[in-house]
């Protein structure tokens, strides 16, 4: 058996268990009747046949209605759980994942990097923010009952809360080329103190590592973003009028079209790569695109920096 390593994996197993029971019942009915009729009504058997039922529509309506009711129940069950599986709690710890042929690159907010491994604390909701550098990959951890395609040019997220320490399979389950079967790794769930220890002694030598946000700030300066958005992202840099970035993450942004969007990872990513797409109300579409100038990991650091502006520099 595979371990049930998260809270939700138990619920997914209940759903699968219910489906197994329903299937076994229907299979027993269908195979049972077929075998019974094969035995009872084979040619040459003396069984009493009686008149065939002429009112077949009564049977038809009865079993159609019963089937529909059962199916609708299963649909509701599966759908309810799915909605919960894809809506992360607000306090989830975000970890970044980049897929490329044929490795998983993981970066923690503190700047710790890993390849084909993901260390995480138990008892705390974790949200993965994932993208791909080339083809479609799929991040799958069977012990957590989770799976999500990782697409180039987009952020996809999944979340889960591991419950017991252990090491579990990590698979890429979307065909991604010759090395597909080797794009595997392990997810290591650790107790909170162990995880803290791992973070401090982590894969990068202590001292040389900077947090993602700090690296993002360096990039922010180097790419010239501060020229318009201000050195601290307060929106007062230079002659050009640019929106303030402080407190932006997580807020509702009013666009020039009148629409309102939530400023999340997806919005920030698109605003850097395709700044003409969603223009903030009251501003000119003059920002150049940084598409092709920053790679996926740099983008994630820029976004980590923008996120950090929300917490520490909000007036």
């Amino acid at each position, binding site marked *: 058996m595979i371990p049930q390593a998260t809270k939700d994996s138990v619920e997914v197993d209940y759903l699968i268990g219910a489906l197994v029971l329903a299937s076994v019942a229907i299979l027993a009915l269908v195979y049972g009747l077929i075998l019974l009729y094969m035995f009872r009504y084979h040619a040459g058997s003396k069984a009493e046949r009686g008149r065939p039922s002429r009112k077949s529509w009564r049977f038809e309506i009865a079993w159609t209605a019963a089937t529909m009711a059962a199916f609708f129940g299963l649909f509701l069950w*599966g759908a309810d759980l799915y909605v919960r599986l894809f809506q992360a709690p607000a306090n989830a710890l975000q970890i970044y994942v980049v897929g490329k042929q044929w490795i998983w690159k993981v970066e923690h907010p503190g700047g710790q990097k890993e390849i084909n491994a993901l260390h995480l604390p138990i008892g705390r909701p974790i949200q993965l923010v994932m993208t791909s550098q080339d083809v479609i990959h799929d991040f799958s951890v069977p012990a957590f009952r989770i799976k999500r395609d990782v697409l180039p040019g987009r952020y996809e997220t999944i979340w889960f809360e591991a419950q017991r320490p252990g090491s579990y399979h990590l698979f890429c389950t979307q065909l991604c080329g010759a090395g597909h079967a080797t794009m595997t790794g392990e997810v290591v769930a650790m107790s909170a103190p162990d995880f803290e220890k791992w973070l401090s002694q982590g894969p990068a030598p202590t001292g040389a590592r900077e947090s993602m946000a700090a690296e993002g700030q360096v990039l922010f300066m180097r790419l010239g973003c501060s020229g318009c958005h201000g050195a601290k992202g307060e929106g007062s840099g230079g002659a050009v009028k640019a929106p303030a970035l402080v407190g932006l993450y997580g807020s509702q942004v009013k666009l020039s079209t009148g629409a309102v969007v939530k400023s999340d990872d997806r919005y920030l990513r698109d605003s850097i790569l395709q700044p003409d797409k969603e223009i903030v109300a009251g501003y000119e579409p003059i920002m150049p695109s940084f598409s092709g100038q920053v790679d996926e990991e740099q983008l994630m650091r820029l976004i980590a920096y923008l996120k950090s502006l929300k917490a520490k520099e909000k007036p």
Partner: protein
Amino acid sequence: MRPSYLTDGFSLRSWLLTTDHKRIAILYLGSITLFFFIGGVAAALLRYNLISSRGLLGSAEIYNKLFSMHGVVMVWFFLVPAVPVTLGNFLIPLMLGARDLAFPRLNLLSWYLFMIGGITVLYAMIIGGVDTGWTFYTPLTTLYSNGHVVLAVVAIFISGFSSIATGLNFIVSIHKLRAPGMSWHRMPVFLWSLYATSVIMVLATPVLAMTLLLLAFERIFHIGVFDPSVGGDPLLFQHLFWFYSHPAVYIMILPGFGVVSEIIPAFSSKELFGYKFVVWASIAIAVISFLVWGHHMFVAGESLYSALVFSLLSYAVAVPSAIKVFNWVGTMHNGYIRFDAPMLYAIGFVGLFTMGGLTGLFVAALAADVHLTQTYFVVAHFHYVMVGGMVSAYFAGLHFWWPKITGKMYPEMWGRAAAIIIFAGFNLTFFPQFILGYLGMPRRYASYPVEYEPLNLLSSAGAAVLAVGYLLPLGYLIWSLMYGKDAPANPWHATGLEWKTPSPPPTENFPATPVVTEPPYQYPLKEAVSHE
């Protein structure tokens, strides 16, 4: 030798330029049998590779090319055409009481298109193959694959036209060529199911053709349709692809429903239970099948709301399938059941298709799908539907109408043995894969963690049994051509116009146009006289 369509000219030219639907059906029968065995050999090599967790073929590239070839050949050059182009081509005019299909020359053209597509795909496989899987997901296919993607896609594009032409031909024939007295509700279910199939073929195949054309353009000219680095959307391809390929599942399975709906009444000597419900279930499946493509993308990045809608609709399409299963079982009640090979295959079909359908509920249930999709559970599920279901139905039909097609009886004992071996081998091959999938083994892995080895070994052993089961009919059916007993016009005491003409039928099918005076499946409700 009795004069028949088989004796009407012996030259190669009389076969290659024939417009007789029966001879074209024979041409197709030979072609798809060839493709079935090519796809089957690839499958055998895949199962051989998976005996060991390290992969016995020693190369992931070769493994990827083999499963791509297995998928492409089996889906487009066997499962989609199989029943319509062989049994359908042979039987539609006979069951309608007509002399030929509505467009005999278009029918011949369809076969040539099919062969050009088939030879092109084989050529692409010989010069290096493709490593993208039969689904051709972008941007792997458009930017990163090293295989002969464009050639393979062109082959499928060409064979798509064969599919469209066949579908059109069937629709027009069924509308215009029914014998006097054959109202829509006196039409056998086999014709109804091919009618529904043809509607899907004609409406869905052009979408596939356009999608593949865009794919080829993107690969050659790097236009930004699917490639995100130039502004395309990688999910768009999946939407377009599954808009064809999900209805295509019903192109594969609906004709099987038709075959079984003929055989179970014949060998139960009883009217088909709930004829009208079975007919309208086919139409309902054809319509709803267009609305469920998004259930292939529950973890691919479609929105939450699309996922909910597609899940609900997927349950909706399962209802008519369930109705059919209940009706087949209902038909056996109070019957006089004979266990000739076609009936054994048909009963096998009902069992395996039910299994495939029920496991479809697992992947339609959203949260369960998240865990099970992209694993061996899905592989097992669709093989139960398409191989367990569809291939069993095809074999059922082939045995049922073999005396009509060839004028020879196949050896009954061998037929029954093969039916039982196939059923057992199939379950041994694919049932362990449900468990493997639940345990998390991803599909399309050339090598895998060692704990999955025992179940894979079991599955590969089953594949060996299944291979024997599939080779047996090849042997005894060919044997029957030379040594089989001559078949009477109606060896099974079945109803239907095709049994009212000699076996094999003369070129013009019927000496005089038959007239239909009663609904189909008017069986006498008593023991049939045992066949001679």
